Structure formats: C-alpha cells, structure tokens
C-alpha cells in the first residue's frame, strides 16, 4: 500500500515536472525570439498581468461574473432536466411527447441560437443564462432518462413490498439509483456550460472573462488575451474538480469509490 501511494506521489511529481517543462519551453521560445512576443507573450508577462489584475481585483470581478452566469444556467438546467428525464423514463405520455424534441435538440449546435436569443432576450445576463441553461439541458436530460430507464425492477419491487408509495418510490429509490447516471450527465454538462458562458460573453460583451478577452483583443493586448486563457483554464479546473468531489461524496456507497 505504501509503495503504491509512493508511486502515485511520484507520478504526480512527474506530471508536475512535465507541466513545468512545457512552461519553460513557452517562456524560452518567446524570450529567445523564436516566436514573436505579440503572437505568444512570455509566460512570465502573463503571470505578472494576472497578479496585478488580482491586486486590483479586476480578475475577481470577471471570474465572479463568469462563474455566476455559468452556475446559474447550469443549476437551472439541472433543476429542469433531472425531473423531466426521470418522468420520461417512468411515464409513457411524457416520453412520447418529449423524446422527438430532445432527439432533435440534442445534436444541434446550441450556440447557433445566439442571434435568436439576443433578439428575444437582449444581450444582458438573462439572455446569457438562458443560453447556458439551453446548452446544459440536453446532456443532463439524456443521461437522466437513460440512467432511469435502465434501473432494475428488483429494488423497486422490494421498496413497494416494504410499503413505499409510487411517489416515495420516485424520490427515495429511483432518484438515488439513477444518481450515478445523473451525475455523469452533470459532469458532461458543466464544461459545456463553461464553454457556452465564455462564448456568449465574447459575442454579447458585458464583462466576464469572455468579454474581457474580447476587449483585450480589440486593444491588441495579447498579454491580456493570454491572461484570460489562464483564468478560464483555472476556473474550469476548479469547478470540474469540485463536481468530481461532489460525486465522490454523494456516491460513497458506490463500488466506484472502493479504492481503499
């Protein structure tokens, strides 16, 4: 066991070294003049910019706005899509009505709806959040529906024979049994939501990391653009890690978390 953890630690160290090596190549290539610093500004300049923006607080305003939009859209999508997915799997009528709509909507590039949403909802937060909800909705409803349809009848029958009503069955048995699939749907939807947030911010403007990057681009501020890329990378990593943690915590009972 201790050798395994030592190995894992070593592997983590190796991965960190690889990243550090790449960062070094980045720094060196623009410092040495292999690449024009306007096309690829040195990493150190980007980090300095990030640091000064953090001191002024500008980064946190942009990150906060982006995170607020992304999470609001994502949560609204989850609140709508999870119950709908479960109902589709349990009620024939609901499935009959929604299945064709979802089949059409799922493969569609949701971002193509941006002009329509701008037309309908203007360019402010409402419009962005609706766009994010719209693009997160499909992966969640599809995963929930498929996960709920594949539940074994045995635990359901057990619960019924222990006295559970139809409604209790939905909340107390079906929801937790479908939880692994639902969480997978959420894990697919979250990066989709992050991407949609950045793109809508770029298209509609109004601060946020995406908006700030477009603004930096307009002023030929390539360091600013790369700082934006770094912010997105860090923000994305943090929220996705957080969701992974949430999954591990909610599914402590699941064999997937039997690592010890």
């Amino acid at each position, binding site marked *: 066991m201790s050798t395994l953890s030592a190995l894992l630690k070593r592997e983590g160290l190796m991965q960190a070294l690889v990243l550090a090596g790449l960062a070094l190549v980045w720094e060196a290539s623009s410092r040495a003049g292999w690449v024009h610093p306007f096309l690829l500004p040195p990493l150190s300049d980007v980090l300095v910019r990030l640091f000064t923006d953090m001191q002024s607080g500008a980064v946190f305003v942009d990150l906060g706005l982006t995170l607020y939009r992304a999470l609001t859209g994502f949560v609204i999508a989850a609140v709508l899509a999870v119950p709908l997915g479960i109902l589709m799997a349990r009620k024939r009528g609901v499935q009959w009505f929604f299945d064709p709509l979802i089949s059409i909507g799922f493969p569609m590039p949701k971002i193509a709806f941006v002009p329509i949403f701008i037309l309908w909802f203007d360019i402010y937060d409402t419009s962005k959040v609706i766009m994010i909800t719209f693009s997160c909705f499909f992966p969640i409803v599809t995963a929930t529906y498929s996960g709920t349809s594949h539940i074994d009848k045995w*635990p359901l*029958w*057990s619960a019924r*024979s*222990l*006295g559970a009503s139809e409604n209790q069955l939905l909340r107390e048995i079906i929801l937790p049994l479908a939880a692994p699939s639902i969480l997978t749907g959420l894990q697919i939807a979250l990066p989709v939501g992050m991407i949609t947030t950045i793109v809508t911010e770029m298209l509609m403007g109004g601060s946020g990391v995406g908006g700030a990057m477009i603004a930096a681009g307009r002023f030929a501020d390539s360091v600013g653009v790369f700082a934006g890329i770094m912010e997105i990378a860090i923000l994305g990593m943090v929220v996705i890690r957080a969701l992974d943690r949430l999954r591990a915590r909610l599914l402590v009972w699941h064999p997937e978390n039997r690592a010890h």
Partner: protein
Amino acid sequence: MTADFGIKIEGVSHAYGGGQSGLASGTLALKQTDLLIGHHEFHALLGPSGCGKSTLLYLIGGFIPVQTGSISTQKGPVTAPGPDRSIVFQNFALFPWKTVLENVMYGLQKKGLPEAECREIAQAHIKLVQLGGFEQAYPSQLSGGMQQRAAIARTLAVDPDILLMDEPFGALDAQTRRVMQEELRMIWKKRPKTVVFVTHDVHEAVFLADRISIMSARPGRIEHQIDTGLGPERDESTLTDRRFVELGEQIWRLVREQAVLASRGGL
C-alpha cells in the same frame, strides 16, 4: 376453519407478451393454477426453469396484475404489493446507497413508526440474522451471504404475514447456502409465518418445507403436492434421515419428468 388459510389461489392463468407487443398470442406461463397454502405453512414451489414458479410468486406479491382467476390472503384479494406480503429476491435487491441499518429501517419508516423504534426493531433483526457489527456497512462491502442476511432482516423487520422468497439462496456458494437454510428454518420457528419459497433445488425444498408443490413444464400448473412430514426440527441430522433421502429421490424423479418435458417442449 374457513379463515385458516394463508394464501388461496384459484384458477390463475397468466400470459406474457400478449396484447400490444405484436405477438399473435402471448406465451402462457401459468394455466388454471389452484393452490391452497395453510396459515404459517412453509411451502416450497419446485419445478423446472421456465415453469412459471416465479410468475406465481410475483402474482402473490402483487408485482404483476392477476389476469384470470383470483389470489387472496387473510387481508382479501391481492391487487398491489404491500408490506403484508414482503419478498426476498435471489439478487438481494438491497438499496446500495443505504447502510445495512438504513436498509432494514426502510420498511419500518414506511409504517410511520417513530425513528427510535425503527432503529430498535431494525437492530434486533440485524442481530437475528447474525449481522451484528455490520450496521454501518454498505451492501457493496458485504459478501453475498451477508447481503442476503441483510435482505432477509429487512423483509422480516416489517413483520409480514406472508414471506415470499424467490430462489433466495440461488446466488450463494454451497456452504453458505447450507448455513442459510438452517438459519432460515430456525428463524421461521422463532417467528412463524406463511412462507412461499421458490427453488429448483430439490434438497433445499425438502429440507425447508412442510409441503412442496411440484409444477409442470410450461404452461405451469401444480402437478403434485407432497407433505414432507419431516417434523418441525431440521438440522444436520435431517440430511441423513431415511425419509429425507427417500423424499429427495421421489421428488427428484417427479421434477426430472417435468424437466424432460420442458426441454422437449423447447425443441
């Protein structure tokens, strides 16, 4: 005497896949089945695979609707599942996100008992099936035998009038199976209930049951009924009892007949 029965099954037929499924006519699983099971009788349903013994059990449980005929208990005709007829499945069907204690408490909570009482009753039943110390374990952390003990505790805890068992020991290894059989019989003696035990293991049926119904090949019917007459005590010595050995052979011949018919029917 009129009310002194556990389960009354009259003229029950059951077809699968008929109606809208596109088949011209469904597969007939049960045909005109009659069976009277006594109050607090341990009754085994024995037969070749596909003879409809599980179907009959699910009908008694109320999990699938009765199409023709009628099934009734002391509580009246069976229409839906309920805690008066609780079931144990071959694959345990525990709630994997709940601990052993929470699994056993579930049915008690559905009865609306106060939390402390649920906990107390659940704990007593966990002890009864000898799972003391594993209250906080999740099902995936337990062996198959322990999972089935938990499932039995969960079912017994709601104190059903009728205990339905669908090949409950089918997924266990031979030794565990033997131990579980002895323990089930012991538990049943402590808490007498009407038991319907589905199995295709002849010796399991003879060892456990007071009465055995042998079902015919599909479409299933009750072909023979046999009183084991082995008395209430069953233990290691039962296995070498002359009557046990003879019954085993006699019943094996009857089941084999049906199994041969079933395999010919399949050709």
